[in-house]
């Protein structure tokens, strides 16, 4: 008995290692694709690989990436958040109203905008976790509400931050002396690390995976699933608020009519990064790589003078390939 048990445990151990290797492989695949795409553009376009352009790519990753970080948590629970894009526009408008129209000090205005994002997320959370609406419906409704509110509050006109020049510096300024490396990229890096720690090292992260893996079982294990879902949706909302600040600072204005479409790009980044829409699986590293793949593609295709319309076609195909590769890998690992 002991011998065969030990033998079995031994075999179990190797299969366990194989499991984690497989997860690594997925991230490696995404990372390898990023390198391949990057190398491709570097070869075919002389204007691609230089400090200015690489900085531009990173810069353009920030907004989608920030939205994607927050929604990674939501998607791992098996949910979805469609209100990211217009929620972001609404938070940008709130920031404008607080700082420009009400004359609040900038830090307070920023804080207000981010917290407002949290409130959007909390409302989503209440709809999903307490009122048990399907996440798709709850956040679709919130998407429309946020879009409308952004227009109502701003009177359908952009709010310009002309009187507070420091606001733009949040995104475009550079705290690294002697360079013009944008702060927004640094902020994004800090947010990504924070999100990674939250997801991998904290109870919040563990329960995020747990809920997505088997919600009922998690509840029966004595975990307050409803409460944690509220926290997770609120967290996604806070990231939405941060994205609203970052995008309005970058543009120097809050554009109430923008935002639609960002949520899909953010979800695409998460999916390309290997997070499963059915929940339980995913990683922050994957999401960051996914966001980078999207902006490298957009940037490279632009440099090659490929029209915007075709860029979307190509992005769509990339999503299909990424998800198909993920499924093929899973099927291979089953047999």
């Amino acid at each position, binding site marked *: 008995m002991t011998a065969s048990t030990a033998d079995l445990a031994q075999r179990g151990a190797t299969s366990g290692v194989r499991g984690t290797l497989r997860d690594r492989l997925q991230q490696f695949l995404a990372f390898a694709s990023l390198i391949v795409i990057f190398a491709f553009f570097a070869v075919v376009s002389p204007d691609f690989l230089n400090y200015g352009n690489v900085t531009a790519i990173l810069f353009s990753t920030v907004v989608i990436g920030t939205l994607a970080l927050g929604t990674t948590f939501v998607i791992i629970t098996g949910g979805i958040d469609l209100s990211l894009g217009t929620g972001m526009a609404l938070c940008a408008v709130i920031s404008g109203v607080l700082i420009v129209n009400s004359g609040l000090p900038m830090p307070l205005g920023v804080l207000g905008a981010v917290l407002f994002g949290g409130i959007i997320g909390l409302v989503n959370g209440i709809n999903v976790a307490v009122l048990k609406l399907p996440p798709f419906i709850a956040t679709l409704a919130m998407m429309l509400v946020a879009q409308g509110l952004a227009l109502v509050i701003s009177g359908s006109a952009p709010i310009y931050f002309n009187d507070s020049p420091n606001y733009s510096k949040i995104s475009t300024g550079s705290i690294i002396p002697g360079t013009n490396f944008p702060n927004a990229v640094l902020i994004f890096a800090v947010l990504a690390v924070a999100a990674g720690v939250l997801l991998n090292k*904290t109870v919040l992260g*563990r329960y995020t995976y747990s809920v997505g*893996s088997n919600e009922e079982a998690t509840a029966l*294990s004595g975990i307050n699933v409803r409460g944690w879902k509220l926290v997770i949706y609120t967290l996604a909302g806070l990231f939405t608020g941060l994205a609203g600040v970052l995008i309005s600072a970058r543009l120097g204005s809050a554009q109430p009519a923008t935002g639609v479409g960002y949520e899909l790009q953010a979800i695409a980044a998460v999916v390309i990064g290997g997070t499963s829409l059915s929940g339980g699986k995913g990683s922050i590293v994957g999401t960051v790589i996914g966001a980078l793949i999207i902006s490298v593609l957009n940037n490279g295709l632009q440099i090659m003078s490929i029209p915007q319309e075709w860029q979307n076609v190509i992005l769509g195909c990339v999503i299909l390939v990424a998800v198909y590769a993920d499924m093929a890998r899973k099927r291979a690992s089953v047999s």
Partner: protein
Amino acid sequence: MNSEHRSTPNDDRALLLQVRGVAKSFPGVRALEDMHLELRHGEVLALVGENGAGKSTLMKLLSGIYRPDAGQFFRDGAPLEITDPRHAQDQGISIIHQEFNLMPDLTVAQNIFIGREPRGGRFLLSERALNARAEELIGRLHLPLRPRQVVGGLTVAKQQMVEIAKALSYDAKVLIMDEPTAALNDAEVSVLHELIRRFLRPDTGVIYISHRMDELKAISDRITVIRDGHYVDTLDTASTSISEVIALMVGREITGETRPVGVRTDRETVLTVSGLRTKTLLKDVSFELEEGEILGFAGLMGAGRTEVARALVGADPIESGTISVHGRPVTIKTPADAAKHRIGYLSEDRKQLGLLLEQDVTANIGLSALRERFQSFGFVKTRAMRATAAELVDSLRIKTPSISQTAKNLSGGNQQKVVIAKWLVKDCDILIFDEPTRGIDVGAKEEIYKLLNELAQRGKSIIMISSELPEVLRMSHRIVVMSEGRIVGQLAADEANQERVMHYATLRPDENPADAAELGLVEPGGTDPAMTVGEK
């Protein structure tokens, strides 16, 4: 109704767990009316009752998911009010539910300690401490698990072990297991029983819910029978016969066993399979199926029985081998091809693969023959379909208020009959039943057996895959035993018995260590036909 219950001789100590007069109603349903249960220290108390008797409701009350309308719980003599699942665990009551409550994407250690993760600070988790604690627990219980294994990749039996480890990690005193063996083979059941015996101490007890009557004899000290939300009786296992228990469960005596009826010797061979091989598991599977025959497929979990069925109906690709129907070789690439050759497969997973749960009985019965029988120019012939459904509901004795009832509202046995009806409409000659009575209560099982016999008598040829050996032995004209993807033995009904079938099932067709030996129960290499498997 039957609320007077036999007072059992008490020892001096208070009972480990007592349920007294508990009632619970849901809108329109009285799930429990007068429930009593007394768990003594150091015993295994079996809880039996037909589906719908109130077992699940009682479990949910004990785990704090529901609150009782009336009655009380006592733990070691003190009144106990269970407020939520966590509270139940804190009170030393751990429940292993029938559907496992595991997170497939998390590791063994993460699953065991979910909700009680060791922290390495205020917010941060300590993965190392977590794995060390899991290692210690697993070692103490002698389980063949590793803390870092991802649970989704484990076999059902090992997932069950994770459940048990989780339950025991709460320092459980009362362990409640709901149908713990539903998905286990006999060798694995013995391992489970061994674990239960190790768990028993003077200050612990187990409530064991099962449909498998033979197991109750093996593991329980006493048996409590409940029926229709009422306590019926508690019996000492040693001095009770299984038929006595079943009689109490159903409220009537089940007379005689349905036995396969004799078949003519000049039967035609309906299906010939030779050299069937799949990429994943099957190797050189060859057998014949005769008209009007019930051919039982026995074997341990993972032996390849379901895979044979799936390959036959084109659900899984075949690598090599031939299938002949009525002597003519056929190519079956999809379940639609199989249906064309009148082969129907009734999957072991009724709910996921066999039924449209949200649709009514008529829609389910008409589904597979919709194109051939119930349409003209693309429009569904509703009246014809309803007439056929009504006819089959009648002839198969499907208990449903109407043919417009939604499938999910039927009991397990009646759902199974709806699936059978679906394939009868299709006019299939060859019916493959995969675990036809899984999760069905005793009375309904008899109904299914009767139905199988009737079908065979009417000339249908039946392959019956089952993990319940007594069922295979009782129902089959011939028995095919599989192990590790091969057919290792074929037995006629009169030469088959439990020991012989298990002997073949644990044979190793090649040099790989056998499944049973893996679990440390069967001496590897044993060839004695009378060798006992498990602890029957």
